[in-house]
């Protein structure tokens, strides 16, 4: 793919890599009882954009936490490894993860620039250098002019863009997003969807995007995974047949509508929409 040819270059000289995520036989039950995930088995290719779609409470966020390593599943394993090309080009390169939460989760006492610099600081980069390196991702989300503002001086959409810049600052090879735009209004959300897709196209990273909105999943991803109600299983694994270049007006395209309908039927067949919102 063409976008891989460029690669994006970190300030420390290392070339950003993309990683494969292999999920093998993952099952899990909450200690309070019921099973959450049932035998999830899938491989997410390095550099792909995958949407994980399902009703609330189906365990998709739990799966995302397992992938991030924040929690461990009761059974099964999850392996993250640099793509074959990257492993050859950069022996010893490690998978770097970034996580974007549902709310922006910024530190209110830190300026925009310092919030974005935080991950680098935590990994041992000096404050001055971390601040310098935070400028790039902020420019990428078009917030180059609000470095010294504080989160309470920003709109919800801007806060989310800061959160995305913070995730990008470490040049992650896997970016996990857990319903990041769910709390935003529809217009802001669509603009952020478009921006996120562009960011992905400009970089080499694997993106796993959890959502319960059909249209958002279809708009963003190359591949959509539909999960059933709890206990969550993968009930549909679908490669979206849509052009690479996606704009906001894609949502009115007949192909797009057909693809969304396909996802909708998968959700419906597995009882996922019985009592549920489907923000398509």
């Amino acid at each position: 793919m063409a976008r891989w040819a460029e690669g994006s270059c970190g300030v420390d000289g290392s070339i950003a890599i993309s990683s494969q995520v292999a999920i093998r036989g993952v099952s899990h039950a909450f200690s309070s009882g019921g099973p959450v995930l049932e035998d999830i088995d899938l491989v997410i290719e390095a550099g792909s954009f995958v949407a994980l779609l399902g009703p609330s409470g189906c365990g998709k966020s739990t799966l995302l936490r397992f992938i991030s390593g924040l929690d461990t599943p009761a059974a099964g394993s999850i392996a993250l490894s640099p793509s074959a090309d990257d492993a050859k080009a950069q022996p010893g390169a490690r998978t770097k993860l970034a996580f974007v939460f549902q709310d922006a989760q910024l530190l209110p006492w830190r300026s925009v620039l310092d919030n974005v610099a935080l991950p680098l600081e935590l990994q041992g980069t000096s404050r001055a250098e971390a601040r310098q390196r935070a400028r790039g991702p902020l420019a990428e989300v078009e917030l180059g002019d609000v470095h010294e503002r504080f989160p309470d001086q920003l709109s919800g959409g801007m806060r989310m863009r800061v959160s995305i810049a913070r995730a990008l600052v470490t040049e992650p090879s896997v970016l996990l997003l857990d319903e990041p735009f769910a709390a935003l209004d529809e217009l802001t959300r669509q603009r952020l969807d478009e921006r996120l897709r562009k960011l992905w196209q400009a970089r080499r990273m694997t993106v796993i995007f959890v959502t319960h909105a059909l249209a958002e999943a279809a708009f963003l991803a190359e591949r959509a995974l539909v999960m059933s109600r709890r206990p969550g299983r993968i009930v549909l694994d679908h490669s979206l047949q849509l052009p690479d270049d996606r704009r906001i007006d894609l949502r009115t395209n007949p192909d797009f509508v057909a693809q969304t309908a396909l996802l909708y039927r998968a959700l419906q067949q597995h009882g996922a929409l019985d009592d549920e919102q489907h923000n398509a």
Partner: protein
Amino acid sequence: MSNPTLRAVLQSALPPAITFVVVIALWEGAVRAFAVPKFLVPPPSDVLLAAWAERTSLAAALLTTAEGAGLGFLLSASLGTSVGLAFSLSRWLERGLYPYALFLQTVPIVAVAPLLVLWFGPGLRAVAVSAFIVSVFPIIANTLAGLRSVDPRLSDLFRLYGAKLGDTVLKLRLPTAIPSMMTGLKVASGLSVIGAIVGEFVAGFSEGNAGLGITVLSAYRQLRTDLLFAAVLLASLLGLLLFALVSSLSTLLLRRLRAPG
């Protein structure tokens, strides 16, 4: 009125000022009208006169008490926040020691004060320790609660980037805890004056300078109720002053942290 700050000041200061004037006037009037014996309730004018007549000794007593309360408060603030921090870092430590920290809160300070004289000798040290005992628990409890109130997703974020414990404490937990810690410090500031006065009742007899607690005791023995009132008022004012000091520090800090409240 054109000046908005002046207006705001007036709006907040005027109602309590009116209350003050009305209460003083009623008090003065009632005491005179019903001819209440002065050793029971002196009129405010007598209190003022007594305060003026004894101004040198009262000022010295105020300074002595302020020293004891201030020292005790600083001790509480430093030890209380450290202990709260230690508890937040170790569940074992918390489980093992928290019940005994609670003991500091429930111990009748008047009953313990004689022990303090035995251990620390009469004077400033015993008074400061008494102020410390009374004021430390709210600081420990509020520090601990504040440090525990971190958003779990922010903890996740720090964990994801492999943050060292020191960074997590300095860059996440302490900034999160500061509003709660400030609440604890505000409560403790008033309590430390109470602890100092109680300490003085038992332990304040050494050295040349006696605190307001001693003034209250000796005024009581001489049935100089006007002087007693003056000393009690001064002690309350001292508590208010300490509270105002901590409050303004808190406001400044919270503004820097952009925390609500």
